[in-house]
């Protein structure tokens, strides 16, 4: 299958700093790809480059196989939903949604039903005559989505689609969005700094770092096997230590950890995901002391220090509320081989 969007060695420089540094990315039709990365990793620049709002210093953007160099934004047939929505303040909700169809010369008698249909779709039926300034953040987001969908773009791009919303609304909308895109068969390229959002929304996750792609894969693959320490830390995994792999185990400051078969021998960085840190009686396994515990509602996150080895990196563990030890308690730690990952250096 040919890619709907193909980005080849895209490079954008601001001064001597490259916001995009030779990025290659394909997006297949009907696929939802989420670009994940911290501030300044170049993910929004990527969207702007595809939209034609940011000229490339090198590389190419192809849509349906056609090079887009020289094609102005309004002729690319892609949609972009801005992070802060950028609704037109002087138009009402209907006027905003109808803007794209109007630009594409859709006759009025088809336009009006289309606007109503889209407002239904995003859960704002009958809101066409409301002023945009009377909308809440979540409603603005829905109008922005309806507006972006209205001209039926071949590729819909979302810049931090749920960035400004509060948590509960975000969690609900992310599910709605996924269902909606699945139903419409929309091809989506979204960027976010929120891993939860990316994992919930995407068929494929692309992690960016400093203008380059650090890892690409299904949410599950990226979660299970972060390619590098950067990706691991960005996903929130901080239990990482130096180790030396030899004969099926890695020797670390936490002792010997089992590693998957076939791991290359030699020095490595070793990650243990929190579910892999198993707590037991103080006299079994690695002796540790509970340094901090954080209530997470139903579960408790623990930070453990290795007793007698102050320099060893802290371990992060999880526990049910009922079984959670108190701060200062001594526990013994064993490791689940399935949660140990040897990272590329």
């Amino acid at each position, binding site marked *: 299958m040919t890619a709907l969007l193909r980005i080849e060695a895209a490079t954008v420089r601001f001064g001597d700093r490259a916001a995009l540094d030779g990025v290659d990315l394909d997006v297949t039709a009907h696929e939802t790809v989420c670009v994940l990365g911290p501030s300044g990793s170049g*993910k*929004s*620049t990527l969207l702007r480059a595809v939209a*034609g709002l940011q000229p490339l210093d090198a590389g190419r953007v192809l849509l349906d196989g056609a090079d887009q160099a020289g094609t102005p934004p*309004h002729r690319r047939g892609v949609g972009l939903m801005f992070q802060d929505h*950028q609704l037109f303040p002087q138009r009402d909700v209907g006027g905003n949604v109808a803007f794209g169809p109007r630009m594409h010369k859709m006759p009025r008698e088809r336009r009006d039903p289309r606007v109503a249909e889209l407002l239904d779709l995003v859960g704002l039926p009958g809101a066409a005559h409301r*002023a945009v300034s009377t909308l809440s953040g979540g409603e603005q987001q829905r109008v922005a989505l309806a507006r972006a969908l209205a001209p039926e773009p071949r590729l819909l791009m979302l810049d931090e689609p749920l960035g400004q919303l509060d948590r509960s609304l975000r969690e609900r909308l992310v599910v709605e969005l996924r269902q909606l895109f699945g139903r419409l068969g929309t091809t989506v390229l979204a960027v976010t*700094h929120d891993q939860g959002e990316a994992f919930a929304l995407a068929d494929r996750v692309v992690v960016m770092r400093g203008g380059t792609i650090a890892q690409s894969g299904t949410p599950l693959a990226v979660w299970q096997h972060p390619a590098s320490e950067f990706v691991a830390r960005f996903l929130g995994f901080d239990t990482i230590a130096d180790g030396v792999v030899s004969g099926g185990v890695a020797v670390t400051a936490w002792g010997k950890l089992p590693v998957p078969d076939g791991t290359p021998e030699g020095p490595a960085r070793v990650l243990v995901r929190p579910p892999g840190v198993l707590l037991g009686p103080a006299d079994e396994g690695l002796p540790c002391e509970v340094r901090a515990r954080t209530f997470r509602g139903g579960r408790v996150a623990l930070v453990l220090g290795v007793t007698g080895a102050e320099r060893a990196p802290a371990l992060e563990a999880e526990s049910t509320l009922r079984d959670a030890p108190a701060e200062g308690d001594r526990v013994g730690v064993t490791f689940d081989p399935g949660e140990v990952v040897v990272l590329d250096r």
Partner: protein
Amino acid sequence: MDVDRPVVPAGPEGPEGPEGRDGSDGSAPAPASVRGRGGRGRATGVRLALMALPLAFFAVFFAYPVGAIVARGLHQGGRWRFGAVGDVLGDPSIRHVLWFTCWQAAASTALTLAVGLPGAYVFARLEFPGKRLLRAVVTVPFVLPTVVAGSAFLALLGRGGFTDSLLGFRLDTSVWAILVAHVFFNYAVVVRTVGGLWAQLDPRQEEAARMLGAGRLAAWRRVTLPALAPSVAAAALMVFLFTFTSFGVIQILGGPTRSTLEVEIYRQTAELLDLPTAAVLTLLQFVAVAVILGVHAWTVRRRESALRLVDAARTAHRPRGGERALLAGVLAVVALLILLPLGVLVARSFDGPNGYGLAFYRALASTDGSGDGGTFLVSPLETVWNSLRYAAVATVIALAVGALAAAALARRAGRVMRGFDALLMLPLGTSAVTVGFGFLITLDKPPLDLRDSWLLVPLAQALVGVPFVVRVMLPVLRAVDARLREAAAVLGASPLRAWREVELPMVARAVGIAAGFAFAVSLGEFGATVFIARPDSPTLPVAVARLLGRAGEMNYGQAMALSTILMVVCAASLLILETAWQRRPDGRRTTVPTGEF
């Protein structure tokens, strides 16, 4: 499109900025040197195209006439006589003029700031009934013809005037009359320029300082004042510029001994026909004005530095405690300084020979000049129609030229563009007399033979209107988020369509205000018009000046009546055009800022 975004220096967070706060991720800065391929050349082309008409306009109708008249003064007998510069500057009476010009401008500026700054606070931060109307009223003097203001103060402070008959003192022979009239004129400059920013300063900045242990005064001095300082400086420089080049007020209130450069240029040109001296003085004023404008451009640039601005509607509150006294004081000043002179002018216009009535207004309709001063070619009342026609055409020209210039300036500026910006302001400070006389000697031969064309007057008036159009439009154009245009583009709108659909509706109100200013300023233009208006179709201010120049109560009363008409027309045009766009179709007020000077 990529070049329209403001250049933000890359901070520690990198050019993408903090995400989630303002979405600046997308509007990453593109320093001029490294903008992407293609975009840069195209944008420069657009900018040049936008600048072409304003530049041509200024070259033909400003640089050429002014240059020609200066050349005529200094190029005599086949060679240049720059020695005239030394001769003129050595003349003690000219040195006296220079000294008076400078010190009265400095004194007027200081006085205007002292009176205007409390007003700026009150209009910016306090909520009181009638505020919007009053804000419009204090703007009226600024667009009033100087001739009218001069007459108003003559009626207030002069012989047989309000204070003379009521309190037994006259000020028309003292310099105070000039200073007070200058404050009257420029009060609005301070209130609008400083107050406009003050209203949008985030009060939480001051609150943050308070929470960190600063007292009320210390917080104001250390947080608010530094933020305001550039706008105070800009306002002060504008007031200095206007008073430095003051003409009508000095003509009427200055008497024989007090003369500014501008008045002296008029005297040398029109009365003594001493073109070399006039040329030197014109150059001198040119240099002084260029310096003032240079400093002004610099402060404006500083004013645009990053300030936390919020919607003005959120910062105003009802007066509490000592603020009530402040409000009362400011209202008293407005009443005494602005309403009283205007009121006295109106009252005098009705105070006819046979008691209060419309005698002077009736006399305006006849051409016999009321016996003691010869006759007019046209009745004074007809000049109202002349003025309206001229001003309407001048407004159209000023809007076209000014809007194009503002659009070019809003699209990112370098040093060249700042020079362009200052160039547009120059006519404000250049002797109108020079411009008028320059028109006469340059635009009288093919291919530009406008000698007998009525177009000459609106062209000269538009020259003064353009700076106002640019000043009003520029901040608004700059405030339109470039990403709104981008949003329109990705929805399929071509650049032209995006401008029409998105940008134009947002700046419509500013266009209205700019038109109001241009119209009012054109109506009141006197210095240039007096030279080039044909005797059979004088404008209203010219007729007022002619009436004032004649003896007799009837002429004086007619001058007051005509001035009243001019004042009402000016104020009404400003108010109508300013309020016509005040409300959006949905009934809520726009938050797009209106421009200040």
